[in-house]
C-alpha cells in the first residue's frame, strides 16, 4: 500500500492504495465517483475515460501512482455552474443514450475533441471517436450530437 494524492476535478484527494491499482478503482471506490464505468479493464472500450491534463485517458489501465501532479477531470468536473457542458446539452437535445453505460467515454472524448478542434469535420469526429464502443448502436445520434455541440 502506498499513500497517493490524486488531483480530481480541482480537488486533491489522498488515498491508500496499491501503486499499480488502476485509477478507475480509486475514482469509483475510494472517491465514490460513479461516472467512469468499468467496461473491459483492457483499454478497449472507453467507458472508463477521464481527462488527464485534458487528454482522454483510459483510467482502467492507468496506475494510480503515475498521476503525480497531473490534473484529472471526470464527467462530474466538466459541468460549469451546475449546468451541463455543451457536449452534454447536445447529447440531451439529441436524446442520444439508450442504456447510457458507454456514455462517459463518448462525452469525455468529445469534450477533448472540441477543445482541440472546435469545428471538426465528420471525418475528424469519426477518427477521434474510433475505438470507443457503444453496444446499443447509438452511433448516428452521437454524430448528430457532436455536430450540434460544435455549433453551440
Amino acid at each position, binding site marked *: 500500500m502506498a499513500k497517493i494524492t490524486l488531483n480530481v476535478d480541482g480537488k486533491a484527494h489522498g488515498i491508500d*492504495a*496499491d501503486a499499480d*491499482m*488502476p485509477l478507475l*478503482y480509486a475514482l*469509483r*471506490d475510494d472517491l465514490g465517483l*460513479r*461516472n467512469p*464505468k*468499468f*467496461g*473491459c*479493464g*483492457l483499454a*478497449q*472500450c472507453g*467507458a472508463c475515460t477521464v481527462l488527464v491534463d485534458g487528454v482522454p485517458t483510459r483510467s482502467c489501465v492507468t496506475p494510480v501512482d503515475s498521476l503525480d501532479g497531473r490534473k484529472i477531470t471526470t*464527467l*462530474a468536473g466538466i*459541468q460549469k455552474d451546475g449546468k*451541463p457542458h455543451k457536449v*452534454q446539452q447536445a*447529447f*440531451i437535445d439529441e*436524446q*442520444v*443514450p*439508450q*442504456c*447510457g*453505460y*458507454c*456514455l*462517459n467515454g463518448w*462525452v469525455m472524448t468529445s469534450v477533448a475533441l472540441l477543445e482541440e478542434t472546435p469545428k471538426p469535420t465528420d471525418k475528424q*469526429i*469519426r*477518427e477521434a*471517436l*474510433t*475505438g*470507443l*464502443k*457503444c*453496444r*446499443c*448502436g*447509438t*452511433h*448516428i*445520434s*452521437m*454524430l448528430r450530437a457532436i455536430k450540434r455541440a460544435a455549433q453551440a
Partner: protein
Amino acid sequence: MNMQINRRSLIAGAGALTVSVVLPGGKARAAVFGADKRPPLIPENLSSYISIRADGGAVCYWGKMDMGQGTDLGCAQMVAEELDLPIERVDILAGDTGTSVNQGGASGSTGIQLGGVALASAAAEARWQLVQMASKHLGVPADQLTVANGVVMSKTDGAKKVTYGELIGERFFDTQLEWNKQIGNALFVKGTGVRKSVADYKVIGTSPLRRDVPPKVTGTGDFVVDIKVPGMIHARVIRPPVAGASPVSVDEASVKNIPGVQIVREQAFLAVTAPREYDAVKAARQLKVTWSDVKPPFPGHTKIYDHIRAAPVIAKGGDKVVGDVDEAFKNAAKVVEASYEWPFQSHASMGPACAVIELKPGGEAVLYSGSQKPHFTAEGAAAMLGLPKDKVRGIWVPGPGCYGRNDAGDAAADAALIAKITGKSVRLIYSRADSTGWDPKGPASTHKARAAIDKDGNVTAWDFSSKGFSRLDVNSNESQPHDNLAGHMTGVALKPTHIFNTPEESYGFSAKRKTWETVPPLLDRASPLRGAHLRDPLGPQIHFASESFMDEVAFATNTDPVAFRMKHLKEPRDLAVVKAAAEKAGWQPRTAARKQASGDIARGQGIAYAQRNGTRVAVVADVEVNLKTGKVWGRKITVAHDCGVIINPKQLTMTIEGNICQSLSRCLHEEVKFNEKAVTSVDWETYPILDMSEAPESIEIVLINMPNIVPSGAGEGTMRPFAAAVGNAIYDATGVRLRQAPFTPERLKAGFA
C-alpha cells in the same frame, strides 16, 4: 417537470409504498374515496397499476422495464391518454417487485404491445372510477361529466368540478379488475371503463422527451454498478480454462497476501471475495487452481456447421404445410437451391454484468440487477439463497444494456450463491472475459432453401428448413437454478427446451413448407455456448437465409428483387413496407447483379423484408465494398417500419436507429470463436463490434402509422431482415453471394478469388 421519485427512499419503505407530495397550502380534501393503504400487490387490484398523487397526477407501476428505447415513456403516454392527463403529470415506476406485478420484464419487444396495453386498460378503468366518484361527489350524472387535465367537471355547469387529487389523491383505488390469470408478458386486466377511441388521442402519437436521458448524460443516475449497500463485500468469479472442468483443489496460500480475501467454492462454482473491489480483482487473477481433466467438449468454430449437419436431431417442428410441395418439386422445370450459415453470437453487453445482493434482517434480501426480468430473476436469486421467493425483492436498476437473456441473470444467481455461502451482502461484477466468454449465446445454425420453378419462370413451391442449436438451453426467465450458471455449476438437474423457429412472411407461393430441427448442445452443463435469447431470437439467422434466398430466386427467374416481393407478398402491410423502403431508397430495378465499381470501390443496393409478431419491416441497404480489402461499409440504410399505431415517433425512430447499428455490427463482425476447449472470443479485440468509423453516413426511416391497429413491438423487427439486405447489396455490388455470416473481409476476399 415530473416528480422525481427517489428509488432509495422507496426501498426504505420496504413493502409499504408511500409516494407523497404535499400540496402547497395543504388544502382540505374535497372527498374521500378509495383505501388509505395500498391494497395487496396482486394482478386483480387496480391499485397495482395506477395511483393518484395529492396533486392529481398519476403514478403507474409497470412490471416491465425500459432498456433505453423509451418504452416506459410510451406506457406513461398511454396511461396519460386514458386518464386525460398531460404526460408531464404521469410518472412510471418500473421493474421493482415491491411496487409492480410481474408483467414479464423486458421481453420480446412487448413493452408497449402487451405491457403498455395492459396499463392503458387499467388506466381506462381508473378514469371510469374517477368519473363515478366525481359524479357522487358533485351530484351530477356520470354521462354529464367531462374530464380535462385531471379535472372532472359538469358539461353544462363549469362551476361544478373536482380534481383527481381531491377525489383520491394519496389514497388508493380499491377496485378489482378482471384478470386473465396470466403472469408475465401475457398478463392483461380489464374493468368497466373502455379505452378512448383513436380520434380522441392527444398524447399518443406525440414525442415527449425521455426522462432518463438527462441523468444518464450528466452522470447523476445510478447504474447497478453504482449501488452500494451496507457491509457488502466484492466478488469475482473464476471460470474454468476448459469448459466443463471443475476445481479439484485451490491453493489458498496463493492469495494469502490479499487483505480479507475469502475463497468461495461449491462443486464446480468458484469465486473470491474481498472487502475492497480491487483486492477481489487481484485475488481472482492470482488464485492458483487445479482443474479437473475433462475431454475438450467443442469441435472449434471452424467446424461448427459440419458438426451441425452431422449431428443427431433431438427435436423438430414447423409450420402447417401449404399445398403439395413434393409434387411441385417433381414437376419443376428448374430447382433453385442454397444453404446458409449463421454463427454463435454474444450479447457482449457494454459492461460485464453486475448484481448486488443485500441481506436484510429476518431472512429477507434485496437483489439489484440490470436483468431484463427482475421479477423472475429475484425468484432465481431466492432459490440460490434458499429463501422463499416472497422474501427477495428484485429491483431493476439500469445496467449496461440488455438485449435478451444476457449475463445479468447469471450474475444475480452467482451473487446470491456467494451471499448465501459467506452470509454477507455481495456486489459481484464479472470481468470482460467472464461476460463475453461466458454469457448465454445466440445459437449457431444452418439453413437450406429450395424453390421449384415452372417452365414459365413461376415459383411453384418453396421449401425452407433450419438445423441448429436450440434458442433455449437456458430459459430467459432466469427464475430457476437450472437456467443459471450457478445452478449448472452446483449440479442441479437440467431442463433445457429444444426449440427453433421458422420465417415470418406472407409469400403466397402455392406450395410452401417451413421446418426446423435442433441438435444437442455441445456441452449440456455450464456451457459458455448455451443457447438463449439474443435480440430477436433466431430472427436474424433465419431471415438472413430466407431473404437472401428470395433474392437468389428473383435473379434465377429474371425478376427484380423488389418486383419479386411485390408480386408474391400477400399482405397489404407487407407490400406497403417494401414499396415504401424501395421508393425512399431510390431503388434501381435490376435482374442481375449490377457490379457498379469505380476504382477499388463497388457499390450495391439490396432489399429484404420480414414480419415480427405483428410488426413489418423492409430494409434497403446501400453498401460500398472495397474490392482490395474486402471491407464492407453500410453507407446508407433505409428502413420502412409498420408496428401499428405509433405511440412516440421520436423514440420509435431512435429505437430503429439502434437496431440498424447493432444489426450492422452483427452481420459485418460478430462471430463467437472457440477452440476445442473454450470460447476464445473474450473481449472487444476478439469479439469486435461496429466502430464509429463504420457507422452509416445516413439513415432514412419511413414510419408507417396505422392508427387503428394495436401497437406491436419495435425493439427487434429491424434486426430480422437486416443481414439479408446487406448480403443482397454485397451481391449487387460484387456478384459475390455470401451465404455465411458475418460478412468479414476474409469471406469477401475469398468470394472475389
